[in-house]
């Protein structure tokens, strides 16, 4: 990779090493593709493979840890995370376990495809092309709305499945841990959409300027 580039009068000017070039774009798209593949494998393919193999469904389960009070040494008894196995689940229970995963995978695939289109226009040198604002808003919507919906779907469906299991006297604890990072990233995408809207308007103004 050259550290300089030719100008019109043949002089060399230093290349902007922080510029988001083709290599960065391809790397980012590969990374997004890998993330998409991992999510699909983890949320859809592995549960289906487990279904075919007849494996039990493993469900996360939170319960307080009850131990005798030993001393006043400052021991902190917090929540215990259990992996509860639902042995020999019915078809309905399998589907209930699969639906949130399919929804999450669909969200991720949709996000990756929209992001790919977004990056394609940036790579083509037209970052403010028509449709870029819509794409950013879709990405923002997927993150702000889609992530919590996927979380609640997984949470409620897992809860329904755990409710049908004999938990051996353990009391369930509800811990709402919303995907805040995704939601904040969605807000950033929505803000970027506004910036791109202004950029598109400015580009339109400059076109045809002599």
């Amino acid at each position: 990779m050259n550290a300089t580039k030719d100008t019109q009068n043949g002089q060399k000017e230093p290349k902007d090493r922080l510029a988001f070039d083709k290599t960065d774009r391809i790397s980012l798209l590969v990374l997004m593709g890998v993330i998409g593949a991992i999510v699909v494998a983890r949320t859809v393919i592995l549960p289906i493979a487990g279904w075919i193999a007849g494996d039990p469904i493993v469900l996360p389960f939170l319960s307080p840890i009850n131990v005798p009070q030993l001393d006043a040494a400052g021991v902190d008894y917090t929540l215990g995370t259990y992996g509860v196995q639902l042995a020999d689940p019915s078809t309905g229970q399998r589907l209930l376990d699969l639906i949130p995963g399919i929804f999450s995978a669909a969200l991720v695939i949709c996000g990756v495809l929209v992001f790919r289109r977004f990056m394609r226009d940036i790579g083509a040198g037209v970052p403010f092309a028509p449709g870029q604002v819509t794409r950013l808003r879709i990405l923002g919507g997927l993150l702000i709305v889609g992530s919590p919906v996927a979380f609640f779907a997984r949470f409620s469906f897992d809860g329904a499945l755990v409710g049908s299991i004999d938990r051996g006297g353990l009391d369930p604890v509800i811990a709402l841990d919303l995907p805040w990072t995704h939601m904040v990233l969605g807000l950033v995408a929505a803000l970027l959409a506004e910036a791109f809207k202004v950029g598109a308007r400015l580009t339109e103004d400059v076109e045809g300027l002599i």
Partner: protein
Amino acid sequence: MPVEQPHRVVCHLDDLLQDRGMTLAALAEAVGVTVVNLSVLKNNRAKAIRFSTLTAICEVLHCQAGELFSVE
């Protein structure tokens, strides 16, 4: 009055060039604008013109802005 789309500004660069016996390439050279951009202006495909470009064109062609443009 609301801004009208599209505009009705007509450029008379072609007539001025003919009167002065000047080519578009020579004007482009004198003004420091590309022939392509001047061609866009001449064929009424320009949406806007910088005051600096307008000043340079008027200086080279010895004309006023009103001679270069009219609203029809």
